[in-house]
């Protein structure tokens, strides 16, 4: 907290040409503050620059009073708010604010502002508004907040320290904000000016460090130390490979020709580190793995079997897609671009990408989630020649707030993580005008190690674009030697330096503060509008986003297309001076795209209209090198082949044996109705309405099946359906599957279940299962064995099993994998405590429904309809929410008959197309009972069912879980026809009733439970720990 309390006054003491006065402003409500309330919060601003103008605009303010009156118009609602202002060198003005508040009964006042260099969207927008109103350009605005603490708070938190502790993460985040508390009586009586009042937060960097040469003439240990100290996240063998490259004679010759030193510059070393980071290169997925399966079951007896796997990615993921390609002519671009691209019709393609932003969200959840969603939007924008985002998806895995959770100094409270992430996705999606159509929320205490924040975006792009009067494919890049490299969007600052290497490490005490970034959805929306128009005008020959690794990655990757690039750092626009060359290259400052063009002048003209900054930062060539110029001198010259292919392959060990499972089941509870209600209110089952309503899920006017449907808008739908084009009836279906509850038993099963869940959810609303494409997102605890990570081999064994499950399910369901991502270091480690997440695989699916008016929702439709359970697998209490809550375990795991499931899904799709199916809902957490309850809650109707499942305990019949299961209702006239089609997969349960009750009977006819729709609804609407 020391940081927040000590204020640098150096700005004011340094006179210079930028030594304008700082105007401090507070926007306070007209109605008097009530000191009896806990906390009053209001906006604060600090403004500096020239308060007069050369412009001849009528609105141009003359002098300070005029400036204040313009500010009043811009910053206040004159009907409801007043503006207080003061020049920060005059003590009495701000003292008068303090006196006023003190007289109203407040004791304490806090100021909050962003730390210097943290993105301040509000400040930036006000700067633009001031320029519009005639202020001279160059005016700087910093935004913040003031807090007055009422009686209650000051009683509850008597010391300043306890108050600050209370406010931390609630009202400020130490990594993003300054937060200073003042005693009002002292400020009010201060005569000489207040040294601790906040002034304008200037970035005050020392002069940029010159480019440094880093000798690699070191032994292995020294190389490893070097990598650690410089946060390179490179292994000893990687450092050796780099050393070897620089020792190569031909490399040395070229370096001499360009007046470069023998050993790498810091710029070069940083570029290599970014390019070879786990985040960018997926080294674990490409490693050679010795896999020991201690329980291979391909003989009569289980035995140990060793296999060498040459790249998990090639063996299981790429191989599945390759095997399916002959059946799927619609796969246009898989695994090569920023998103997987699938043909939609004869003019358009759709693309889909899902990313994770776990590590940043653990440190600063709002900024982490916001940049996560904006980042994946940019992935889509950077696909082909530019795709327009159509929809967002979000899947969160959190630890449910509980007193037993681990608390460490460097860990945020779980409530703060959840609230920040939710808000970040809201701002990211809503402000960008992209509908959040689908998602999931899963709680498990294991996510205390790191929250998982999956952000997905789908987009639409044209199959053809006209460039220089020639029609070219819109789903490919056409960058040629001679094309200009253009940086579009935000400026470069210290934000997010080392983001790529940082996400490749466990969170630790020294995790870099500069990793904190806050996205700017407004600037990005302008960039988005600009890119789409530029694409349609044929101005873009290639495009990619600036995400992890910044320019180093974006230009470095695009350079592969032409085989060469020259990047001139002197042209790169900076937020503030003082950045070293390597920092400019790897900065992950947000809202930037990298474009190649042959018509820069036209691009620039268009950018003026959209108010987007575009800069010529170099050119593409075919010299086979990535060259970087800084202050007129070459500071990097890297062989592209070495950069992209030179990383040594990792060799890893993996082991797997099924963990011992004990059966520990209690007796069947007497009141099963109570159990249903308890499950309905479980955080993993209860209504997500509170979150859904805060995300715009309809913008762009394409929605068909929304997250909540039915007569009362509360039926939780299994998947989303949207139109892709306004004048086309075909619909895009989006769903997801995530089943981490099974990873502790067998990650193979987890992967099967995740694929099945995604496919089944899509089928439920009417998707053609043969049209589905899927995306894989692995979030794993570190699977590399080391002293600090003793069970690394087992974690890698789980990863192998998951990949095998994914392969088997993808092949069986004929679902090609079109894109994916892995996040391999989801551990917390502060040197004392080490925590790991449960291995988690998210499957996202995208498919087609030929006509959107055939889509169906999961709610029951008409009394008298027949209710059927369809299943293509077996169930178990193992891993079920019911058993988890009771701390029970079961011996048998659920199973899935992939062949049977595929047949059932295909039949169901045909029946939905033929209007035979009234409703269809997947069975997931909570099993059959919860599926029935949700269909009742969604419709307001009832169900009368009997459980003819004699071999099971009744609680297992109601609550056991397993893949491949669906609850379907049909008109009774279709019973015989349907039963014939479904065969052994179906079981008739009963009828939909009109009495709003769930009535379950035993096989013999004795009543088992009765629940009313109201009590079920109120249990289900339990509030989540989300504001």
């Amino acid at each position, binding site marked *: 907290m020391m940081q927040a309390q000590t204020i640098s006054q150096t700005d004011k003491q340094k006179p210079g040409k930028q030594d304008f006065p700082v105007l401090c402003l507070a926007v306070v409500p007209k109605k008097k503050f009530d000191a009896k309330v806990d906390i009053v919060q209001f906006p604060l601003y600090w403004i500096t620059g020239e308060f007069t103008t050369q412009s001849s605009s009528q609105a141009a303010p003359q002098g300070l009073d005029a400036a204040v009156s313009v500010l009043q118009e811009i910053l206040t609602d004159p009907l*409801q708010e007043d503006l207080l202002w003061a020049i920060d060198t005059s003590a009495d003005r701000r003292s008068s604010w303090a006196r006023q508040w003190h007289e109203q009964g407040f004791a304490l006042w806090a100021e909050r502002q962003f730390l210097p260099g943290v993105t301040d969207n509000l400040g930036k927008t006000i700067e633009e508004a001031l320029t519009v109103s005639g202020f001279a350009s160059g005016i700087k605005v910093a935004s913040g907040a003031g807090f007055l603490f009422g009686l209650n708070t000051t009683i509850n938190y008597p010391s300043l320290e306890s108050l600050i502790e209370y406010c931390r993460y609630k009202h400020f985040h130490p990594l993003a904000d300054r937060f200073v508390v003042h005693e009002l009586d002292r400020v009010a009586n201060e005569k000489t000016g207040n040294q601790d009042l906040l002034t304008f937060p200037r970035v005050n960097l020392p002069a940029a460090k010159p480019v440094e040469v880093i000798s690699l003439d070191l032994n292995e240990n020294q190389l490893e130390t070097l990598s650690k100290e410089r946060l390179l996240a490179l292994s000893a063998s990687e450092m050796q490979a780099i050393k070897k490259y620089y020792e190569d004679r031909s490399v040395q010759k070229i370096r001499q020709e360009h007046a470069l030193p023998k050993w790498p510059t810091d710029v070069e070393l940083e570029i290599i580190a970014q390019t070879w980071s786990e985040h960018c290169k997926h080294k674990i997925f490409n490693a050679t793995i010795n896999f020991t399966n201690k329980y291979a079951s391909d003989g009569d007896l289980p035995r140990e079997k060793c296999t060498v796997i040459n790249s998990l990615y090639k063996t299981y993921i790429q191989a599945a897609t390759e095997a399916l390609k002959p059946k799927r002519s619609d796969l246009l671009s898989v695994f090569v671009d920023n998103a997987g691209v699938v043909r939609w019709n004869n003019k358009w393609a759709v693309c889909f990408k899902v990313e994770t932003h776990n590590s940043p969200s653990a440190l600063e959840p709002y900024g982490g989630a916001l940049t996560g969603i904006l980042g994946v939007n940019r992935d889509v924008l950077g696909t082909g020649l530019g795709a327009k985002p159509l929809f967002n998806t979000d899947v969160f895995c959190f630890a449910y707030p509980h007193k037993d959770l681990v608390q460490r100094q460097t860990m945020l409270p779980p409530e703060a993580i959840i609230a920040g992430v939710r808000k970040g996705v809201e701002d990211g999606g809503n402000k960008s005008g992209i509908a959040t159509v689908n998602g999931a929320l899963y709680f498990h205490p294991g996510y205390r190690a790191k929250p998982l924040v999956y952000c997905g975006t789908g987009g639409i792009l044209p199959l053809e674009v006209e460039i220089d009067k020639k029609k070219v494919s819109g789903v490919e890049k056409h960058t040629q030697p001679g094309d200009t490299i253009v940086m579009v969007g935000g400026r470069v600052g210290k934000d997010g330096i080392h983001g790529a290497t940082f996400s490749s490490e466990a969170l630790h005490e020294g995790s870099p503060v500069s990793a904190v970034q806050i996205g700017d959805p407004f600037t990005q929306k302008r960039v988005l509008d600009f890119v789409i128009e530029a694409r349609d005008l044929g101005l873009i020959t290639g495009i990619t986003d600036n995400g992890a690794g910044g320019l180093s990655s974006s230009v470095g990757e695009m350079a592969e297309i032409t085989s060469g690039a020259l990047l001139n750092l002197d042209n790169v626009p900076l937020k503030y001076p003082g950045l070293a060359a390597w920092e400019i290259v790897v900065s992950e400052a947000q809202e930037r795209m990298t474009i190649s063009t042959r018509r820069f002048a036209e691009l620039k003209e268009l950018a003026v209209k959209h108010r987007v900054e575009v800069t010529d930062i170099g050119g593409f060539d075919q010299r086979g090198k990535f060259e970087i110029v800084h202050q007129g001198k070459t500071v990097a010259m890297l062989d592209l082949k070495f950069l992209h292919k030179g990383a040594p392959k990792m060799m890893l060990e993996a082991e797997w044996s099924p963990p011992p499972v004990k059966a520990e089941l209690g007796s069947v509870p007497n009141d099963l109705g109570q159990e249903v209600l308890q499950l309905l209110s479980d955080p993993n089952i209860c209504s997500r309405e509170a979150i859904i*309503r805060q995300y715009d899920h309809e913008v762009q006017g394409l929605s068909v099946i929304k997250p909540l449907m039915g007569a009362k808008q509360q039926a939780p739908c299994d998947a989303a359906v949207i139109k892709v084009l306004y004048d086309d009836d075909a619909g895009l279906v989006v769903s997801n599957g995530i089943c981490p509850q099974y990873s502790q038993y067998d990650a193979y099963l987890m992967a099967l279940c995740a694929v099945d869940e995604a496919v089944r959810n899509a089928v439920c609303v009417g998707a053609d299962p043969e049209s589905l494409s899927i995306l894989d997102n692995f979030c794993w605890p570190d699977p590399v064995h080391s002293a600090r990570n003793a069970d690394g081999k087992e974690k890698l064994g789980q990863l192998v099993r998951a990949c095998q499950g994914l392969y088997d399910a993808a092949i069986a369901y004929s679902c090609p994998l079109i894109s994916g991502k892995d996040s391999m270091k989801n551990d917390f480690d502060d040197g004392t405590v080490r925590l790991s997440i449960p291995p988690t695989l998210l499957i996202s699916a995208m498919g087609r429904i030929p006509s959107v008016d055939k889509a169906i929702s999961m709610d029951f439709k008409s009394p008298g309809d027949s209710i059927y359970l369809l299943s293509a697998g077996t169930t178990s209490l193992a891993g079920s929410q019911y058993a988890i809550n009771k701390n029970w375990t079961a011996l048998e795991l659920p199973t899935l008959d992939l062949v049977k499931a595929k047949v059932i899904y295909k039949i169901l799709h045909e029946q939905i197309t033929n209007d035979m199916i009234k409703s269809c809902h997947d069975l997931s957490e909570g099993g059959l009972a919860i599926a029935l309850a949700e269909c009742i809650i969604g419709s307001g109707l009832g169900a009368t069912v009997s459980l003819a499942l004699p071999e099971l305990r009744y609680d297992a019949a109601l609550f056991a879980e397993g893949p491949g299961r669906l609850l379907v209702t049909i008109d009774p006239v279709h019973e015989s026809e349907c039963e014939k089609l479904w065969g052994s997969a179906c079981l008739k349960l009963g009828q939909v009733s009109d009495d709003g009750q769930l009535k379950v009977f035993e096989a013999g006819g004795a009543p088992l439970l009765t629940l009313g729709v109201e009590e079920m609804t109120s249990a289900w609407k339990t509030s989540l720990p989300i504001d």
Partner: protein
Amino acid sequence: MTKPKAIVIHGDGINCDAETSFAFEYTGFEVERQHVSDILSASQLLSVAQLLVIPGGFSFGDEIASGKILALKIKNSLQEQLHQFIDRGGLVLGICNGFQVLVQMGLLPDSNRKAKPTVSLAHNSGGKFINKWVSMQVPQDTHCFFFKGLTQIELPIRHGEGRLVVAGGDDSAEADIVRSRAVLRYDEDVNGSFDGIAGLTNDKGNVCGLMPHPEAFVRWTQHPSWTAVGAGFPRPQLGPARHQGGETPPLQRQMKNVGVLTMPPRDRIACADIPHGLAILQNAAKALN
């Protein structure tokens, strides 16, 4: 018959321009999408249009207050042209963020040159953004061109700042004027808005601001209950539905009193009860013919 011409503005964070343009085109307008920068620098654009639409979105990221800076921008360079446009009977529709812009510009509930702002759209009483479909009533005999003949309407709201506040207080003379200019009232209290007001018009009825989104209900499959009420009956069709064999499909029955409006001849469906957003846009087309 020449089509009426509508300008739909986009850029600077507006994000409902695509569906709004589509909806107006579908209704029979000739739509010109214009970037904010273009319309500010070429103000004569307004002189050839009959309708100006400011769509929903997050102009300038909703910073300071929603609609504030876009309003400032338009006011600084287009105020006079806009007043002339309104004076000669041009229609202005602000949807969601567009409504907030009109209020910030002081064009609602009074759009004469001397009118002072009397209302604001403040943060929802629940403090949160809400995306939800709501049922609303149109006051009888409304003089607003967009709502003539309509009575009850369902549309989605998608806003964080939609609570109408009257500066002079609920009992002031200004409040009486605001009441008389209401075009839509929520059936339930969704955001704490004064008098449950969801939309306002000016004295002449040609400037209209709406928190709900009419462009989001131009086909039946946009309604959140369309799968429920369609069950067991002929499914509502895409776009405006036709009466089938004299029997009104249940969804249309439920959404009664929409009024019978004539669709433009280019549409594949001749006439019938139509989705409510489309009905509002149709009214605009009728007023201009």
